[in-house]
């Protein structure tokens, strides 16, 4: 990695640019690159096999990263890199790492096509607000799922009856309590060494990261997240998280979430911004992994055609040109207890597995309601393993994804948010209710009928 002090120096001494000018320059540059490379989004091709376009997205993303750099909105200075620096950063970035400890450790890979390994499956409920009462049983529902390799927490939103507030003291307490409870959930499930991905989900600021950088909370075998601000921006709060990781050797992951329809433009511009964001985060943050989360400007969900395509083309782009450990978010519109969330889950799992991605788990109801459970995460993993073992071609995967999309597309306008955890699971036994299991079996049979060969 680069000397981080050099990054900080650039953040303080780089060329000055107003934020609005940066945004408009991004739009112009991404639009021009999209035209130059003839990038096209086809609503009927979600899982792409277009190597030429994937290579163009990578090269276009590289040029966008060089042209734009990363803007520090704290200083309004550009953190710029030349091409050699960016390519070196990609070259030295980790390609394989052991996450977690002991028998529970799992290998996270920079995936390529046909390398003989399925994705590493992360289970959990990122972004989901959870009360103190429901937190432990919800997390146990994920820890108990054997196909889940690593776990991510929801967010504790209240402590002793008080709201957890951005930049408030309770962000510290909530982040620490989150880690203690996730670790308890892992111990009670007999998997104490499992990797906790993006630790400190209960805090939106660097306070949480700093608070848990201690073996009692976040172990050095866990990871924490350092977001890139949309689009291609950072600030002192994000860089403080990098500084924390610089001296506390837990794993780190970026979060790159271009808005489709935002400052980079439509799906092709968002793909370029995602590629550029990954490249810049590799250089500026020196992260071990990247979380991909393209956001639809109207529906938010990653299960839209536009967002799944952006993930797919970017996954293919990096697998072919600069393999990195990429984890795609799988945020759904629907919630637990509905057939709709399972259709969305299957589509996302098949699309991501077939695009050389790993997953950063489901975020039911886009992380708005606590309507989530381990069962839909189980289904995600089952779909991943089925797609991998079946060696689905991109065309076959695409056909399945399109069939599934038709099943849930109406939910974007009229979402079925489902039910809270306590109504889809027995919260004492941590097992799904019969009703929720019946829905799961029905949808699984239906997806099998579409042509996905489940192993069990």
């Amino acid at each position, binding site marked *: 990695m680069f000397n981080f002090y050099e990054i900080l120096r650039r953040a303080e001494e780089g060329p000055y640019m107003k934020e609005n000018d940066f945004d408009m320059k991004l739009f112009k540059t991404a639009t021009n690159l999209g035209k130059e490379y003839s990038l096209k989004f086809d609503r009927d091709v979600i899982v792409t096999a277009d190597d030429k376009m994937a290579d163009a997205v990578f090269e276009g993303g590289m040029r966008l990263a060089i042209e734009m750099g990363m803007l520090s909105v704290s200083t309004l200075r550009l953190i710029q890199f030349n091409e050699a620096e960016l390519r070196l950063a990609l070259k030295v970035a980790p390609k394989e790492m052991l996450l977690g400890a002991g028998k529970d450790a799992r290998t996270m890979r920079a995936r390529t096509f046909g390398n003989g390994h399925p994705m590493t499956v992360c289970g959990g409920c990122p*972004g989901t607000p959870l009360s103190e009462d429901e937190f432990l049983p919800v997390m146990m529902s994920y820890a108990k799922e054997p196909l889940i390799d690593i776990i991510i927490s929801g967010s504790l939103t209240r402590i002793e009856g008080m709201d957890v507030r*951005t930049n408030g003291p309770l962000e510290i307490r909530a982040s620490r309590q989150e880690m203690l409870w996730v670790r308890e959930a892992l111990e009670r499930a007999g998997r104490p060494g499992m990797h906790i991905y993006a630790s400190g989900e*209960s805090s*939106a600021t660097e306070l949480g990261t700093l608070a848990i950088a201690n073996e009692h909370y976040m172990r050095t075998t866990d990871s924490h997240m350092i977001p890139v601000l949309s689009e291609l921006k950072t600030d002192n709060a994000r860089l403080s998280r990098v500084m924390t990781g610089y001296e506390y050797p837990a794993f780190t992951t970026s979060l790159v979430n271009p808005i489709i329809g935002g*400052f980079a*433009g*439509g799906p092709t511009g968002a793909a370029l911004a995602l590629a550029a964001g990954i490249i810049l985060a590799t250089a500026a943050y020196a992260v071990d992994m990247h979380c991909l989360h393209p956001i639809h*400007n*109207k529906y938010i969900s990653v299960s839209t055609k536009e967002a799944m395509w952006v993930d797919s083309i970017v996954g293919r782009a990096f697998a072919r040109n600069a393999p990195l450990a990429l984890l795609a978010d799988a945020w759904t519109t629907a919630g637990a207890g509905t057939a709709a969330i399972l259709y969305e889950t299957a589509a996302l799992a098949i699309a991501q597995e077939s695009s050389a991605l790993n997953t950063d788990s489901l975020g039911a109801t886009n992380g*708005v309601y606590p309507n989530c459970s381990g069962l839909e995460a189980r289904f995600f993993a089952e779909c991943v393993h089925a797609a991998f073992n079946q060696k689905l071609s991109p065309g076959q995967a695409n056909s399945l994804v399109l069939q599934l999309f038709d099943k849930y597309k109406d939910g974007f306008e009229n979402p079925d948010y489902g039910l809270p955890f306590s109504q889809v699971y027995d919260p004492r036994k941590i097992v799904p209710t019969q009703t929720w299991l019946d829905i799961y079996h029905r949808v699984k049979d239906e997806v099998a009928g579409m042509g996905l060969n489940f192993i069990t």
Partner: protein
Amino acid sequence: MEYYKFENPLLQEIYNAMVEIDSDNAPALAKKALQNEVDVLQIVDALTKGINTVGDRFEAMECFLPELIIAAGLMNEAMEFLRPELDKRDLSVGASGTIVVANLQGDIHDIGRNIATVMLQASGFVVHDLGHDVKPDLIIDKAVELKADVIGLSSLLTTSLPYAKDTINLLKERGLREKFKVVMGGAAVTPDYCTSIQADGYCKDAAQGIKVISSLISGK
């Protein structure tokens, strides 16, 4: 999506220039129309219909946020010289209402608020954008100073939502609650949350926000 037709070719050109966005001709064409003694209200109407079509195209993902911002800038540029003409004739295009918008304290995610601001402006509201990470008392001070009808609060972060409750409680404590309608939007906001803190409206997205705010103002 509705594309408008105008009998007067100059008005059609103004409308087309707004919708095409690529061209920055709309203000010049509006000026030309004014010089040719086209009725100023008709010129404003062509511009307004143009930006509304851009808003519809944005909703349909046929154009994108920067283009929406550019179109709003063109509209504002044209209104700079049209407004005095309206004033001269004692005409008003009737601002639909005044809104202050802000991201709640601690929340630095601008994009949703940017979209809402431009779409509301395009719909004829006077919008004062206070930016991100704004404290409740400052939001209220600005709403008072700018004689706002509506306070619009946005948050992507669950951990910033409590500051919305603070804003409403502070409005009550300062005896100002009845003066302003409070609406909320953003990825972390739910209708239930709005109800729980006694906000006046929930906006799922910018398009719904326009309807909610129009309805609140007309019933105020």
